[in-house]
């Protein structure tokens, strides 16, 4: 959608307010020289603040992803899906319809499933993002992931990350789901291979193995 912007690397701590930064950046030549030398951009990575305007050009913000706070340079038009895939190289999240209709791009925002293709990265703020890469813990697959393998619940695989996210959310929040619950939880997840029966079986099986 837009060019990948360069990531800001590790930056030295130095107290500087956003306003003084903006004033500084207003001196365009001096500002850009300082920015490229990375001596001035320092503390300018945070979350969108009420009463202020950002963009349209890229700015550096913070985002909590899978327990780690990342710094990334993004424009307001950058979707959360694009930020994850193109800026943070978390390509497990898939973009298929790009309109919120297929749920392949499902991630959690503070634990709740959302379509990352329909959110601006600026919508995230201080909320924590969990992607498919954050589901396995300490190298151990989540019971839903394990059950997907055992029940052959994946064919072409494009819908699988989103499908797993929906099913993990169900199993983690409902200790005893029935078939109807699984259908409801995955009602937004399209699978054109038609692997739903295996997804349902895998999820119900996994729910028995989750405490």
């Amino acid at each position, binding site marked *: 959608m837009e060019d990948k912007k360069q990531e800001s690397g590790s930056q030295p701590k130095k107290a500087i307010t956003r306003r003084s930064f903006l004033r500084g950046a207003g001196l365009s030549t001096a500002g850009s020289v300082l920015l490229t030398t990375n001596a001035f951009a320092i503390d300018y990575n945070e979350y969108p603040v009420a009463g202020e305007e950002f963009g349209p050009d890229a700015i550096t913000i913070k985002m909590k992803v899978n327990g780690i706070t990342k710094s990334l340079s993004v424009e*307001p*038009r950058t979707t959360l899906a694009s930020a994850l895939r193109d800026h943070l190289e978390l390509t497990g999240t898939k973009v298929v319809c790009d309109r919120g209709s297929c749920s392949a791009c499902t991630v959690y925002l503070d634990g709740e*499933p959302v*379509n990352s293709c329909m959110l*601006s990265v600026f919508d995230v703020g201080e909320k924590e993002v969990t992607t498919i890469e954050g589901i396995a813990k300490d190298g151990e697959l989540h019971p839903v992931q394990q059950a997907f393998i055992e029940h052959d619940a994946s064919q072409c695989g494009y819908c699988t990350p989103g499908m797993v996210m929906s099913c993990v959310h169900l199993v983690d929040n409902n200790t005893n789901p029935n078939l109807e619950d699984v259908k*409801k*939880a995955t009602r*937004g997840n399209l699978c054109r291979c038609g692997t739903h029966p295996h997804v349902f079986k895998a999820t119900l099986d996994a729910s028995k193995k989750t405490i």
Partner: protein
Amino acid sequence: MNKFSWYEAKSVEDALQQVNSTVSKELYQATNKAAVFKSGGIDVFDWVKEGLLQPKKVINIRNIPGLDKINFDSKKGLRIGSNVTLAELASNPEIKTNYLALHQAVNHAATPQLRNVSTLGGNIAQRNRCWYFRSAEHECLRKGGYLCYAHHPENGENENHAIIDNGSCVSVHASSISTALMAHNATVVIADSEGKKKEVSMDDFFVSTSKDVSKENILEAKELITEIVLPAPTKNTKSAYIKQVERESYDWSLGDVAVVVEVSGNNTCRSASIVLGAAAPVPYRSMEAQQAIEDKTINAANAAVAAKAAMAIAQPLAKNSYKVPLFEATIKQAILEIS
């Protein structure tokens, strides 16, 4: 998406100072200078991704404090902040107990992912889903063109379109939740840039195509929905909502019906509020069905008469005559669900 800046609104007043246009206005007559509101953003970003809306600035109203509350009072009724998500509405126990039609409508809308982000204000203000309207290649009536492509007798793909009030644009409103809200006699609270608030009924909030084809609701640029208010039910109020879709999982409505009635002891309908979704360009209150069932016993025969009366005015297009029997069956079923 085109490049745009992002303004994080502090308050309703602050947001109203920043905005200069509406999505509807921009679709009808694009300026490329627009500063428009976005809350959940599902509909706004859809238009931006399609290239039909090219905002200069997006004013994020999603985090304005105080617009995310649900308050129920058994005497005063229900007040829903415009930033309340559909997920919050779907799981609210007071709505389930007191406003069953709304509860059912919300639970049949969209996907879990979308419900977690979509707000009620955005849901009722979203634009319709006609494929010609949503297509950058078709400059249709709604976008300032001269033709309703869906209306064409031979080539119009109009199977999902309107069967009532379909003289010009034949799209149907996308919010099936509005069907239930209108049946519950909800009102919309709108704030303007001078700090004034007005409260309009759902019936007056929506604009029919015969009045103004450029928009679907009365919102102007410097106006913002702050609340949706539902009157308190009495102990005799009963409601039901049924939505017909093509498949078992989520889908847009082919036809949905909300019925809210006051019933007296011997199962007689004292007053009825019957609204049809996906029947007309805006949610359609069927006065015909209401009059036919009022003061009658709620039974299969009378429900069928009301359903027939509602559909007597239908004028289906080339490919949607199936909607007439679909609505007849659904209206009858919805009325009988409350008996």
